């Protein structure tokens, strides 16, 4: 079992999960927003490492950047993973929870009441069913290709006409429909620069595109 855990100021909520689940491998996601944070989080990481010196990896993330968290965390999610989302910032916990939900692996969190701790499960999974704006598993759908072009070729920001060009010989109405679906899914946003339409990738785009890219 591989435990993926976000880490903040508290060592205890991570150690408690490790003691309970006894994973073979531990991946800790951490990040700081201030110097004060750095010292406290470093201390928590050192305490965890001292207790569980083997098979432990630390992965630094920007605790305020959702897209980066989606990408970095997705590389560590495999079928033997469990996600503990108790520590760290909300951005980190959301990123780990959604990555885990996309892969259908268990998600847990710790509730502390005085000296008592209890682990609960968050039972969420992504549904691949028909009630989605587009088929995420179809990598060659126009919506998924639009996202890929926007993120990979234009670093997440492009004039809409440029994306149309890259998509090649596809009808304007199909491309507009894909754009509309991506907007409704809140995966992109649109801004106007004079008469030009600029498309910008939201962080959720990175969740979808990094799915299945596992270490």
């Amino acid at each position, binding site marked *: 079992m591989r435990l993926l855990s976000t880490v903040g100021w508290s060592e205890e909520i991570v150690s408690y999960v490790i003691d309970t689940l006894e994973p073979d491998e531990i991946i800790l996601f951490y990040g700081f927003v201030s110097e004060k944070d750095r010292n406290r989080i470093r201390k928590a990481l050192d305490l965890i490492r001292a207790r569980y010196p083997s098979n432990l990896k630390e992965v630094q993330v920007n605790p305020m950047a959702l897209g980066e968290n989606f990408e970095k965390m997705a590389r560590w999610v495999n079928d033997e993973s469990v996600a503990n989302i108790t520590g760290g910032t909300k951005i980190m916990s959301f990123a780990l929870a959604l990555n885990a939900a996309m892969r259908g692996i*268990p998600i847990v969190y710790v509730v502390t009441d005085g000296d008592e701790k209890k682990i609960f499960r968050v*039972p*969420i*999974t992504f549904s691949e069913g028909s*009630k989605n*704006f587009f088929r995420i598993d179809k990598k060659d759908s126009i919506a998924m290709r639009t996202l890929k072009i926007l993120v990979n070729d234009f670093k997440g920001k492009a004039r809409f006409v440029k994306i149309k060009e890259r998509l090649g010989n596809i009808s304007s109405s199909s491309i507009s429909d894909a754009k509309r679906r991506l907007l409704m*899914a809140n*995966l992109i946003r649109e801004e106007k620069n004079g008469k030009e339409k600029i498309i910008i990738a*939201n962080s959720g785009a990175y969740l*979808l595109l990094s799915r299945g890219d596992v270490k």
Partner: protein
Amino acid sequence: MKIFLTTLTLYTYENEDERINLNKEESEKFIEGARNAGDYQKMIVFSDYSMEEFEELVTTLPEGESFSEVLSIIKSSDFKWIKTDLINYENSYVRIYKVMEDILVSWSERGYENLHIYMNLSCGHKIGSLSLYMAVLNLVHGEYYGYLSRKKGRYIRIRPYHSERSIVEELPVMNFHNESNPEYEKYIGYLLEPMKIEEFKKAVRKDEALVKNFGDKVIMHLRKRGYISSKDGIIVATKKGRTLYYVLKKLGEI
């Protein structure tokens, strides 16, 4: 119509530095979140305190002053304050789902406006914010997908976001399921070693003799979620299934 949904808490830790800092951040995130929603017609606040308890704490805590703008924003709008157990995912989810269900039923019956739901996920406890996000996505995808996908005359648009230190992070609107079924999941334990389908059905039938085709239902549930695989009439737990089984066992859920 635009509605603004938000979680909100107030920290009462004994460590004064920590408490002041967290409360200052909480009030700033609320103000930023409300600003990001723009003009809204209704606000729903999900808090682990009742409004009276919250106002009482604000007057008691030395840093309570930082919430005066928060309360002023809330009181200047058409708001509902819902006391919610924000540190327990399941309790919070159920409460929020019910509140939002009532709002959406009334919206769909009224019948002419589009509905924009702005969801501020920056405040409150993270488990409470996650339950707000999941409850709304589940409800709308499950019961109102026709409006979400704009197949009906009017539509629902959802904007979930996290807003802090002037950085707005948009979250995706996707169909997540909120479900756990330990009654079926416990049977993964039978399949840690490969087993013939008929033998498995026979084994589980003993537990639920009155449920018709119980074995088939268990198999369908587990297979659909990737917890078991089958080949040539033999079924076995997958890596994903084994992991879930061990976790549920360690948590004492099965």
